[in-house]
């Protein structure tokens, strides 16, 4: 017979909520890059206002965690899970902010043509959202090895960011009139680079849930 049925149910509910919030954030990143690629101001505006939904979800989950701590006195693995969820929430919420940040850049760009077709920035977004999905999978499966593997993938995002930066630098050197446009794209790429770093933070929390050890693994170059 399962003991603490109610507690287990509520803990699972929180885990499900993290998945829901994770997919909201993932969709935000994907949409923000679509808006950037297509310079679609309407989508960008919608995304900026939808960020409030992610923030609301975060507070909703946080409240459930606080209630569980206050009423159920979770310990050991349960305590580590709930404390880590509180941290993961912050990371997810920040990734949502980065997506909103990219949308604000889209508004700044307006109807201006891009310097070149965007290739590496969408790649960075694909890679980052894949990392995010894998990290949430590791969270549900409580798999520290999977979490470590995701952290290792951050180097790919960093390398792409380097590439974007170098390429845009050449545009700026050749023609200083491109500086404004190039800088905006660097900002967008930087938002993605930071998002991937946040995913590595999520993975560190997953490792803590499983092992009880705090490990600093995702040391980014930026």
């Amino acid at each position: 017979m399962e003991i603490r049925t109610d507690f287990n149910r509520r803990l699972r509910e929180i885990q499900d909520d993290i998945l829901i919030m994770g997919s909201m954030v993932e969709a935000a990143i994907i949409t923000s890059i679509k808006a950037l690629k297509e310079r679609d101001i309407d989508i960008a505006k919608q995304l900026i206002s939808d960020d409030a939904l992610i923030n609301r979800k975060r507070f909703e989950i946080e409240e459930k965690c606080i209630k569980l701590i206050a009423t159920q006195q979770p310990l050991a693995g349960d305590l580590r899970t709930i404390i880590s969820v509180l941290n993961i929430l912050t990371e997810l919420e920040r990734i949502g902010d980065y997506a909103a940040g990219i949308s604000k850049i889209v508004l700044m760009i307006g109807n201006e043509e891009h310097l070149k077709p965007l290739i590496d920035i969408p790649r960075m977004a694909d890679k980052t959202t894949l990392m995010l999905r894998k990290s949430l999978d590791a969270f549900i499966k409580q798999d520290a090895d999977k979490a470590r593997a995701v952290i290792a993938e951050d180097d790919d995002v960093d390398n792409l960011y380097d590439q974007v930066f170098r390429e845009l630098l050449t545009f700026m050197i050749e023609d200083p009139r491109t500086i404004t446009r190039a800088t905006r794209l660097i900002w967008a790429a930087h938002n993605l680079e930071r998002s991937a770093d946040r995913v590595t933070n999520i993975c560190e929390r997953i490792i803590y849930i499983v092992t009880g050890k705090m490990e600093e693994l995702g040391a980014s170059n930026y």
Partner: protein
Amino acid sequence: MTEYNFNGQNCHGDKIKAKNLNFYYGSFQALRDINLDIPGCAITAIIGPSGCGKSSFLRLLNRMNDLIYGSRIEGTIELDGKNIFDRDVDVVELRKNVGMVFQKPNPFPISIFDNIAFGPKQHGKKSKIELEEIVENSLKQAALWDEVKDKLGQSALALSGGQQQRLCIARVLSVEPEVILMDEPCSALDPMATLKIEDLMRTLAKNYTIIIVTHNMQQAARVSDTTAFFMMEPDRAGSLVEYGSTSEIFTNPKDKRTEDYITGRFG
């Protein structure tokens, strides 16, 4: 360097060492192969499900089980390096050094003053001035003095449950013990009285070695420095599953059984 505290106790290192301890009630084995080193001037909590032998272990520490017909011990328990089961150990002296507070407050039906003075009198202290001093000191240490100083002559039974339990702690302190055993000392008390006793325990731990048996996991987590988790084996003998710093046991226990117990998955 050896450090001594105000009552001349060695606070450095382990105060009590249980080695290969087995304990039987007749043919029934209640404890199996317990090896446990208890640090001095600290609080050690013993937790575990009912029947896991935690109270039996506690009672062995001042040989309360001597009184149980048919009980038998193998192995040793050393107090400051001396086996308490040795033939030359004076049990009365041992119980003076290793005092005990029980689940239900059990003051004698006499005055507050006489409750505290009872032990010292038994141990030969006769002078009124000396006894007054002991009573005042003991009550102060037990954080009860301010509440009872004007009614020392009144019956101890008129005190509240929490006050009675602090009186019992003062009674233990009056004979200057080094170790205090507490068997569920707060289970009959309300939350406020419980917190008072817990505060008191933290203060006393500077000078005394305290071992507490508790069913209240949060209490163990709140007050103790080290925690031992006992469990019943399939043949019902109690054994020590895990022992370590309280923060480690409650955040990251090594043994799955400890994790399951403290997270309420069994027991």
